[in-house]
């Protein structure tokens, strides 16, 4: 039997940043070009999970030809999850590959509970083949592996796939290393909506503007973003296709148009519109058709979010005198109050399994991320920063990405849902990073 279980083709869906013709008149405002100034995010890990699996990821012979060290990226990915500890392995001679016979006792004495071996070979067509295998050195088991063919440009994407494989085999849930995040960088008076790998690297600019961009949200298929842009001197909701850079207006009614949220099937957007007075929740099709009003109050109703099962819309309302989180049936109907502690609870976000609600709470003047268990109604604050905004669950529900401020700068922070493990991502070249949104799993 072939030692390598699956042959996979790595796809690298680069986004295109093009100026659609219908928006040409905005050319003076919008600079939809390939990123001029790189705004790479740098990562700082400020905590760790209680139990981390010691893993040896041995450098793959031949990987130098790829330009990027695949094994280094795999190691960094696994460590960033807070669930692994990468072991330093001195150069071995001869360098072992996935086809080597593993001496489990030797790897146990190097304190490794898990081991990744692999190799990189150049193909005749100029592409490369990466093969690897994962071993459980405690149970002395071959946990299989994968072979990928890839171009040099796909080295990072391939490394994230390998890290996802290792994570899923050893942790028992899907890894998020191949997913992407969206966020807004503000530098001077320039705003850029960027897309990056979950590790903050490989960033690309989807939209650049001299007016603010807020509230990006990923379509369930990960191909489009809805967001609010102020380029028309007032908030307008757009849907932006990442592959071809095409933008369509989803909501541009008289007044303000904001707070988009995708329905789980991607067929609708819930939005906040002021076209009938006040701020009320409506649904629209992503092309702007089929407008339907959901709330009818004299209060503020905004920040709608669908529950993952599509049954409920959670939202922020001050109908009780202070901003609190409510929910109502997706088809409309009597809202029920969800949060009760404190006088400011906003920005509801459901976990992917629908069991937890993350939101921002004002706690003694500090804005922090709280997590509410919807079954037992227990809530706890899981951050210790004081200007948190826009929480966003990783698609496996393990981490929450958020925007906060440290040292006067807007940064992104990720905290594990149990609050134990934190990391910070800031723009290496300066500027404020804000409005994060973690994208879905992509197959």
């Amino acid at each position, binding site marked *: 039997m072939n030692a390598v279980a699956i042959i996979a083709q790595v796809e690298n869906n680069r986004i295109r940043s093009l100026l659609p013709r219908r928006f040409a008149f905005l050319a003076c405002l919008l600079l939809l070009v390939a990123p001029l100034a790189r705004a790479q995010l740098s990562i700082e890990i400020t905590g760790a999970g209680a139990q981390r699996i010691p893993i040896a990821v041995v450098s793959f012979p031949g990987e130098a030809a790829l330009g990027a060290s695949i094994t280094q990226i795999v190691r960094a990915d696994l460590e960033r999850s807070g669930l692994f500890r990468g072991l330093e392995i001195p150069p071995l001679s001869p360098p072992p590959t996935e086809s080597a016979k593993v001496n489990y006792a030797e790897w146990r004495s190097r304190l490794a509970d898990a081991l990744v071996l692999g190799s990189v070979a150049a193909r005749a067509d100029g592409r490369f083949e990466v093969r690897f295998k994962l071993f459980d050195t405690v149970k002395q088991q071959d946990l299989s592996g994968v072979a990928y063919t890839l171009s040099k440009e796909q080295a990072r994407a391939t490394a994230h796939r390998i890290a996802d494989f290792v994570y899923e085999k050893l942790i028992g849930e899907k890894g998020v290393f191949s997913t992407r995040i969206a966020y807004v960088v503000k530098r001077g008076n320039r705003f850029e909506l960027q897309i990056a790998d979950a590790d903050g690297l490989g960033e690309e600019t989807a939209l650049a503007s001299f007016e603010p961009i807020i509230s990006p949200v990923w379509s369930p298929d990960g191909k489009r973003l809805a967001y609010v842009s*102020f380029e028309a001197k007032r*908030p307008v909701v757009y849907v932006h296709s990442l592959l071809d850079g095409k933008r369509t207006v989803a909501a541009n009614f008289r007044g303000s148009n904001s707070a988009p949220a995708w329905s789980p099937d991607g067929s609708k957007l819930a939005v906040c519109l002021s076209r009938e007075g006040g701020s009320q929740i409506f649904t629209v099709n992503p092309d702007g058709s089929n407008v339907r009003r959901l709330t009818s109050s004299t209060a503020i109703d905004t920040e709608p979010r669908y529950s993952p099962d599509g049954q409920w819309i959670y939202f922020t309302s001050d109908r009780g005198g202070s901003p609190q989180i409510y929910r109502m049936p997706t088809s409309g109907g009597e809202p029920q109050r969800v949060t009760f502690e404190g006088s400011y609870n906003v920005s509801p976000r459901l976990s992917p399994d629908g069991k937890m609600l993350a939101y921002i709470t004002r706690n003694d003047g500090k804005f922090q991320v709280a997590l509410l268990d919807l079954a037992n109604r227990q809530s706890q604050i899981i951050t210790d920063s004081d200007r948190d905004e826009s929480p966003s669950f990783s698609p496996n529900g393990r981490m929450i990405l958020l925007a906060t401020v440290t040292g006067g700068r807007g940064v992104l922070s990720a905290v594990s849902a149990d609050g134990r493990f934190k990391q910070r991502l800031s723009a290496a070249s300066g500027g404020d990073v804000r409005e994060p949104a973690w994208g879905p799993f992509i197959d």
Partner: protein
Amino acid sequence: MRQIAVAALTTAMLFLAACATTPDSSAPAPVDTAKPPANVQTQPVKPVDVTGAPGGAAAALKDPKNILSKRSIYYDYDKFDVKDEYRALVEAHAKYLRENPSARMLIQGNTDERGSREYNVALGQRRSDGVKRMMTLLGARENQIESVSLGEEKPQAEGHNEAAWSKNRRSDILYSGEY
């Protein structure tokens, strides 16, 4: 009424034209400024107005001596009511809209930076809606005014203290041609 308005307008224009006249560099010795010359000669000026507002009335919107040039209403923290000190300003703009039915206005509500960006969009909307409601009660027509919100996104002051925040909690009034 119309004649009076035209006469007033002509006077205002003459005044503005006089102000705008640049001194001729080749002119002889300066005149005694304490004693104005008896006969002021000015070239007639045909006004061209591209502001969208009717006639030359729009000039008043930019005249620093006119209350119509005041365009910002500031608020207390978490408040949406127009304070007494801004009532004359709102009344003047409502009167302007009433007297110039083709004039169009955009009111942008703004908040300070604290709290959720989207919730702040809704709070800013409540501020601009409040000003719009006042103006329509004072006789401006609903379709003359659009109220929108910029939330916390367009601060007037960049600081992170009450001094800055108090400048950012505001409604701004713009007329067509200005946005």
